């Protein structure tokens, strides 16, 4: 999978957040997008997933040559885009197993693949569950409803493991996680890595990158990528703070 973002400009409620962003993500690559609060990291993640409320005013985003911005969120998902939410939404009354099965089968239908029956699905989900060390009871509950912060994040990674996206975008999935959960999240991402799948890690901190080794690190500031490098850039950022690149003081 090859993602190409060119001169992307986007605004929220009339305020420009992304101000001409360029990013190329090649097959099998892991890119970390770092930056201070308000730099546009989450906006980038949501624009890629197709959330309403963001207006793209310029630029283009293609995935293997296909225009991503013209597609509905569900069409992007079927193409293999997956967003792990920073704040996963609670869905009262919607059973988690039912949700996971419907999501997988909707994507399979859209791709012209055969749907999984209940037996095949349960077998598959049990495998994935073990992978993310999630309590099986959480499958019987409504999606994310009453889940702890860590359980919600594990549920995101479970969905990612199940849906096997071509492009996984993790929006600050590491925030608020204890070390065990962080390890689970990282294991999930590392298990997904393959020569054709790509990952974008949106994060504020370097900590996650100790567990998931990125091929590239980008620093986003004021809606643009201001510096790109390899993983050593993250280390340097940790030492010097974002002010080093943005010219502003920021308490990290």
């Amino acid at each position, binding site marked *: 999978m090859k993602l190409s973002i060119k001169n992307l400009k986007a605004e929220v409620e009339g305020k420009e957040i992304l101000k001409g962003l360029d990013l190329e993500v090649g097959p099998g690559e892991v890119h970390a997008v770092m930056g201070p609060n308000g730099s546009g990291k989450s906006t980038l993640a949501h624009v890629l*997933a*197709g*959330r*309403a*409320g963001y207006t793209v005013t310029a630029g283009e985003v293609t995935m293997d040559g296909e225009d991503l911005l013209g597609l*509905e*969120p*569900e069409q*992007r*998902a*079927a193409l293999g885009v*997956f*967003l792990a*939410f920073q704040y*996963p*939404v609670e*869905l*009262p*009354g*919607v059973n988690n197993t*039912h*949700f996971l099965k*419907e*999501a*997988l089968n*909707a*994507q399979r239908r*859209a791709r012209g693949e055969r749907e999984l029956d209940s037996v095949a699905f349960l077998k598959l989900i049990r495998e994935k569950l073990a992978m993310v060390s999630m309590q099986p009871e959480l499958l019987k509950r*409504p999606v994310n409803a009453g889940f702890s912060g860590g359980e919600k994040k594990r549920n995101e990674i479970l*969905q990612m493991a199940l*849906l096997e996206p071509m492009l996984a975008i993790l929006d600050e999935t590491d925030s608020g996680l204890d070390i065990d959960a962080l390890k689970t999240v990282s294991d999930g991402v590392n298990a997904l890595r393959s020569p054709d799948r790509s990952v974008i890690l949106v994060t504020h901190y370097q900590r996650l990158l100790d567990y998931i080794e990125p091929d590239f690190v980008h620093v986003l500031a004021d809606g643009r990528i201001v510096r790109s490098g390899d993983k050593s850039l993250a280390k340097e950022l940790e030492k010097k703070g974002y002010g080093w690149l943005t010219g502003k003081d920021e308490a990290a």
Partner: protein
Amino acid sequence: MNTAEQTGTDLISVLHQGQRLLTPLPAALDWLIPLRERGAQGVAAMRLPGRKDEAWRYTSLAFLEQAEYRPLIEGPFDALQLDDVDEMLLNGHEGDRLVFVNGYLAPALSALGGASGGVVVSALAGGLGEVPASLRARLGEIAEQQHPFSALNTALMSDGALIHVPRGVASEKPIEILHVSVGTEQTGICHPRHLIVLEEDARAEIIERYCSLGDAVYFNNVSIEVSLGAGSELVHSRSQEESQNAQHLSDLQVRLGERSRYRLVLASLGGAWSRSDVRVTFEGEGAEAELDGLMLARDKQLNDVHLDIRHEVPHCSSRETFKGILDGKGRVVFDGRILVAQDAQKTDAQLSNDNLMLSRSAEVDTKPQLEIFADDVKCSHGTTVGELDGDMLFYLRSRGIPQVQATQMLCQGFAQEVLDRLPSEALRARTGKVLAERLNQTAA
């Protein structure tokens, strides 16, 4: 003279038509005559309610003017086979089942004889034998005399379920009352009348259902009386999934003795016009009532629930949780009145009504009313009207679930809290399926 009278349908004309055309009562039901007479007097003394009557302000009866409602008479559907209603039956239901077709018991479709311990599962007419004198005395005891349609029901009642659970007896398996309505050439009206009596410390589960064969057009005017003795417990599920052309009115009156428990789950999904009046009166201390309800109002559908919860005595609790789903030009009317009398100290009453609007053309008229005359009580009420949550919708869509399906899943989720209260797994599955089908039709 108002226009309803000119075109032939007001309550008096329905009453007179009924009196003229209904099959005469058999001698065994002579004891019903004075009761019917009382109902007829009630009807004569009342006019058809209109917009100026608070309880009918948002619920128009204009449809009565559109057709002449003739009484549905016994007989023409004797030929109905079990196969014809097979699709409506609950999977795995093992208890007694009374099946009524157009308001009359269909013995061939019913399954009786499973009840033990002196439990009576019978019908008013229908040849199931004499109604015990003890039950006769209870019929009409608590029906609302001020309700015009309930009075009409009393005046014309011909058949219905009679259930009696003796003192200390727990009726083990759920008892089902299934109504099947079949269209006739003329617009019909029928008046099913049920009586449920649990004596002291008795227990029972009753499932009451209303279904239609095809797109039948008719008016179902139901009246139910429930009397719970001290320490008794009734779990009562009601599902109304009638045809989209039907009118359904049910007047449910419940009287709670001390320490009794009443649990009602109402799923009101069908009908062009549906109205449920529920009055629960606490007559003995320490009783509890839990009422859950789901109202579906698709395009051009009206779904009205009027609750009247009367805390007359101390130390009772009630919880009412009702949800509405609306689409197109659907309308939900919810009126939740809780009365706490001066003596009813330590009352705990919580009422809520949440509505989900799938369309901007839909309309909700919701009115919770607390009337509290005691000073040491815990009461609350809350209502909400909202659209589908955009964040929830995006979450589902971002996982590949198309918008139409995502909408249905969220509606189903919204309803699930109520459906989960249904004690019968088969009914839960059935109701969930009917809801999904009807939401599907909405989306299509």
